[in-house]
């Protein structure tokens, strides 16, 4: 059973963050809130999201699963504006989700969750940890995007640097320690990532967020941030690009 009311912008935040990696998602719901774990179709990135029940205006549920087509959710969001209340109710008999925005009601068939995986977030030790205002990164990504199809993330005790190096050009975004919110790094680390993934993830993160980044040497990067005013938590993991040996 699942019945809830939430603000349009909360739902939009969730949809934005999830749909950058996957088209269909399995939301696991229990009495404490909604969570989702998924690996993208190319098996390169992963998302772990939890939305606490406090993020909802009204929330009542016991354990259930909802398979949702994110494009459809987006359609519903288009009907609403920021601040609108969206009501969602699971129709278990017909295996549907009923969504109401104002006077509009939309019923949507749920997607079968049978084939969807249940990934666990891997336990990877990442030696460097830093946090930064997302705007700083978004600006840098914009400059780096057209240069190359990969981007390297470098951290050392003095700061954090993004480098995108193409055949002819190079863009680097240097964030010395004082421009970062925090930095915890003993030895220099570096990893290379696919540009399209990294920029899509960074772009999906809402403005005003403080993003925490964990990196290592040729290891996945973990991005942690909060959504829904601190009532939701998102973890992205992105696998490194294979460098030519």
């Amino acid at each position, binding site marked *: 059973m699942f019945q809830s009311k939430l603000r349009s912008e909360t739902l939009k935040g969730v949809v934005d963050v999830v749909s950058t990696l996957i088209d269909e998602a399995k939301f696991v719901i229990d009495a404490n809130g909604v969570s989702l*774990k998924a*690996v993208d*179709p*190319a*098996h*390169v*990135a*992963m998302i772990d999201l939890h939305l606490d029940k406090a993020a909802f205006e009204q929330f009542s549920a016991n354990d259930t699963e909802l398979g949702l087509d994110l494009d459809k959710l987006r359609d519903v969001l288009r009907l609403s504006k920021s601040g609108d209340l969206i009501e969602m109710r699971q129709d278990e008999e017909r295996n549907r989700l009923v969504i109401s925005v104002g006077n509009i009601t939309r019923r949507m068939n749920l997607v079968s969750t049978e084939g969807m*995986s*249940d*990934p*666990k*977030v*891997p336990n*990877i030790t990442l030696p460097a940890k830093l946090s930064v205002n997302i705007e700083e990164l978004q600006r840098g990504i914009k400059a780096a995007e057209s240069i190359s199809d990969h981007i390297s993330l470098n951290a050392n005790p003095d700061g954090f640097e993004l480098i995108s190096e193409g055949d002819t050009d190079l863009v680097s975004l240097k964030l010395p320690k004082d421009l970062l919110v925090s930095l915890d790094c003993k030895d220099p680390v570096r990893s290379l*990532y*696919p540009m*399209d*993934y990294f920029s899509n993830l960074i772009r999906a993160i809402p403005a005003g967020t403080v993003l925490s980044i964990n990196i290592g040497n*040729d*290891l*996945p990067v973990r991005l942690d941030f909060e959504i829904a005013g601190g009532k939701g938590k998102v973890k992205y*993991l992105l*696998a*490194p*690009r*294979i460098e*030519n*040996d």
Partner: protein
Amino acid sequence: MNDDWTELYRPNNLSEVLGNPKAVKDLRDWAIAWESGNPTEKAVVLMGPPGIGKTSTALALAKEFNWGVVEMNASDSRNADAIKNIAIRGAISDTFTDSGEFLSAKDGRRKLIILDEADNIFGREDHGGIPAMAELIRSTKQPVILIVNDFYELGRRSSIIKTGTKQIKFTKLQSATVRTILKRIATDQGVEVDENVVYAIADRSNGDVRAAIRDIQAVAQGMDHVRMEDIKGLGDRLSKHSMYDLMGEILQGTSGANARSTMMDADEDIDYVMKWLDENIPLVYKDPEELSRAYAHMSRADLFLSRVSKRQYYGFWSYAAEHMTYGVCTSKSTVKRGYVQYNFPKMLLRLSRSKEARGVKASVALKLGSECHSSMKQVVEDILPYFRELYQKDKDFQLAISAKLSLELEEVAYLLDGKIDSPAVKHVMQEIEGMRRNPYEEETARIDTSKPKKGRKKTKEEPDEKRLEEPKVKREVPKEEPKEEKKEAPKSEEPKGTQTTLF
């Protein structure tokens, strides 16, 4: 749990794969090379008839080596974007598995990219799939497996798929191997299956394990003991006549009634039988009079078939069938003995091989037709042969017209008689790209002015420009912007001469 036994009993590692030992060994060697990071070929092609374990072997390989799997099969869209977004993006990065484990290529933990039914990538929905596949093979940093039934077809469409891959052949399984698999499954399910049942199912599978497993699931699921009489349900199909039986009965048999009843049992499409007969009658009937009688019946049957479709009255099927069986069978004046190797209709073979080419030809004809104010048919008959000649010989014309008609990769390849990833074709595509970006050179104009041959008049330049856009939009060509600049360029440049008169 999984209800489909063909899924449930997939092998868990390569040692569990039965049959095709050489292929399995080759595949394992290839995987070991990947583990240490330096395979000679980055991709392999598994080829062979359906249902003999190609996909199962690929998946077993991934399990044995603890690799991740990204699989795209015919139920996924496999156009250029899909292959780029999933296979190629996956192929250049490390991996998270479905269970959330991180695999690093440095440790030999790979991601196996499987393109199943890779010879079935065609058509509008899979547009650009083949070049994307070639790109995948070229750029991948992870192991790639292509699975095909018909390698010839795929290799013909792209040379890198032929040269850049290791090809591993799978053959039909022997009946004994199929029996082993069936017995294991029966034991696992706790069903007692009589030996003759196992034999019957294995024999009729003709080496197709998937079919055999489906059959045993159909008869054994929920049973304790399967006896011969229990497989009556399959029994009907067991006695099912193949097309070869039918041909034999009609062309070499002496009883029209038998031929007719065989056809009833054969469960083959009547149009299909007609094509088979058409192909095989001359193999058996050598006497001109027999031939003439037989084909008289065939033509009557054909008439009935066309009435079936015209009037949508399926009752005529039975008349057509009588002519094809009784009629053709009784057309012979002597008994036909001896073994005859009946052939698959060549017409169908040719049609399926040329499917792609015909599609491309049609799209070229459509584009050209809207330029020449002609129907596609007319273009194909009157213009295309000359156009193609001209296109191959005159480089300037080639580039100009390619840009003007917004020809696509496949179309250029067709006109040049080359493969889509051959250097010549690529060169032309690059040039066109360049022309689209640099608006100043607009040779297209020349062709424009010289068009109205064959008495077809063109009123003005502009409306034509518009019409040109139409087919383009339908074919989803992304490049559209630079069209604007073209308009003024034409007048400023004088035709250079040679090709003006030709077209």
